[in-house]
């Protein structure tokens, strides 16, 4: 089969095809790369010069301001805190609900599946949820970003994976006198590490990237997550989120670059890198684990 000679048309197609895909990849990599370059450039250079592979003059004031911003670090800490706890909370809920659902002998299994899946299609909506959070006194706390309902999709993916574990393993553990909880802990979970790792990674990324809840439920400037900080900088073009005394920021910038304006792209782009770095840096290594879960989940809906 490998011997069959490719026609000219086929070859031209291959070249065009590969070129298009490479161009598409450039549209992904170039904007991110440009932002990295901008974060090390002066304002004059960003606005005045077009495409460049390296800053003409390496400029570190943007980064100095970003890295010495107490409010930005505070939001970074908030994001780490919320991301870790919310992911563990969600994993716990999904795994403990998914395992019984995966058991064919669970009484009223169809009902309990429906009880879960129904919430994917119907919800009370934004306002009843807001009022619930309000009455639980969770508005303006970080806890509101951590707790919540069960993630239906992740639970179904775990259930599907648990179902592929042979019943005989659980049977023999039962004969040895293991309780259901021990079976889950000692047999099912250790055998499900691939799916658990994938779902945990998805959770971590989703929570790191989440900002809508913070926008709706949290006003306190000390309790913002990094995405909100980035959003404020991009939308409002103000840097008061970086420092209580905005004038200090502008003074520091003007000292080193006389053409500083209020719309500071370099500072903005340094914040962008700061906020997305955990994802950009870990992505190349974790990418293959992200994909694994999709295949598992697609086995059966």
């Amino acid at each position: 089969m490998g011997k069959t000679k490719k026609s000219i048309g086929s070859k031209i197609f291959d070249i065009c095809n590969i070129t298009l895909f490479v161009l598409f990849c450039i549209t992904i990599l170039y904007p991110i790369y440009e932002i990295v370059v901008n974060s090390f450039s002066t304002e004059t250079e960003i606005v005045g010069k077009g495409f460049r592979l390296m800053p003409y003059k390496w400029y570190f004031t943007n980064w100095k301001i970003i890295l010495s911003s107490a409010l930005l670090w505070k939001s970074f800490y908030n994001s780490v805190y919320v991301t870790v706890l919310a992911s563990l909370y969600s994993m716990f809920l999904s795994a403990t609900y998914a395992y019984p659902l995966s058991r064919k002998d669970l009484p009223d299994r169809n009902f309990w599946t429906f009880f879960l899946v129904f919430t994917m299609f119907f919800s009370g909506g934004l306002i009843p949820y807001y009022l619930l959070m309000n009455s639980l006194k969770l508005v303006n706390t970080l806890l509101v970003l951590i707790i919540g309902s069960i993630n239906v999709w992740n639970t179904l993916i775990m259930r599907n994976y648990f179902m592929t574990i042979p019943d005989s393993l659980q049977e023999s553990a039962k004969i040895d006198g293991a309780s259901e909880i021990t079976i889950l802990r000692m047999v099912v979970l250790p055998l499900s590490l691939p799916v658990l790792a994938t779902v945990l990674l998805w959770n971590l990324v989703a929570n790191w990237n989440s900002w809508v809840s913070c926008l709706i439920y949290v006003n306190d400037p000390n309790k913002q997550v990094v995405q909100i900080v980035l959003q404020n900088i991009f939308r409002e073009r103000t840097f008061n989120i970086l420092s209580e005394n905005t004038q200090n920021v502008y003074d520091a910038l003007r000292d080193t670059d006389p053409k500083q304006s209020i719309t500071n792209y370099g500072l903005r782009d340094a914040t962008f890198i700061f906020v997305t770095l955990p994802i950009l840096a870990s992505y190349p290594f974790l990418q293959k684990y992200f994909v694994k879960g999709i295949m598992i989940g697609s086995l059966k809906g």
Partner: protein
Amino acid sequence: MAVLPVLNKSRNVALNRTRLYIKYKYLFILMIPGICALLLFSYYPMYGVILAFKEYKLGDGIFGSQWADMYGLKHFIRVFQLEGVRRAVANSFIISMYSLAVGFPAVILFALFLNEIKREGLKRRIQTISYLPNFLSWVAVSSLVIDVLSPSHGILNAILNFFTGQNIYFLTRPEYFRTIIVFSGLWKGIGWGSIIYLAMIANANIELYDAAIVDGAGRIRQAIHVTIPAMFPIISIGLIMSLSGILNGGDFEQIFNLVNSQTLPVGDVMSIYIFRVGLGSYEYSFGTALGLVNTTVGILLLAIANKVAKRVSEYTLW
């Protein structure tokens, strides 16, 4: 056992069920956290939709508040009367249809053409890069979009300026807004969305390809007769899911970050409108009514799409 009379059958069933639940008590103990979370955070807010039939006052709470006028339907009547709602429905519908018409075939073509790259290393590298935007938040991706489209230093305007000598501030022009939304959504999601199709292609029967080659089918005919049929189940399910979301008008996170006062007339989709009116203007009852209509229509559309899919193919959601 023999003492139990036959006429007590229903009691007997209940007893059996209780016994069954006791037998499996540990499984149910495991489920308690999940059940509690579902009840409190999903089912209780569903009960809160009665707010839509009331006149919400902050001090009185959901249950203490007065019933709304017109047999409690006042807010629903407003939903069907307000010009703003009509605009939101129209905007949502147009953006959803646009992104379905462009995005849906694009993802399938992406998978199909990627599958034609036979150099494994290159293919894997392209895949890795193409998934990346999916892992960035919409806050970050819209920053990139704003940058690329910027009239002062964006690359698109630099190219435009080179050829035409003028700059366009794309993000303030309503006529470009939908295209920006559809294509930035595509840029973010196409790689990740293609995974599932590539998986279906990989599962396609190799014997079918061999048979096609023996029959003299070239690459195009192989794609049409073997590869595309292999993707049918997911195409069908994907279409059902997208049709049910038509009234949402795309991603709230995306539009929220890209819309501004100039583009609001075309960008004010349902989710944005509910957010603006419900929380922004504190119209809790009206916002709830609107949300209720929105989810109900979503479920109806899902059911209809599923029914249609059942008629034309064997692959459905349920």
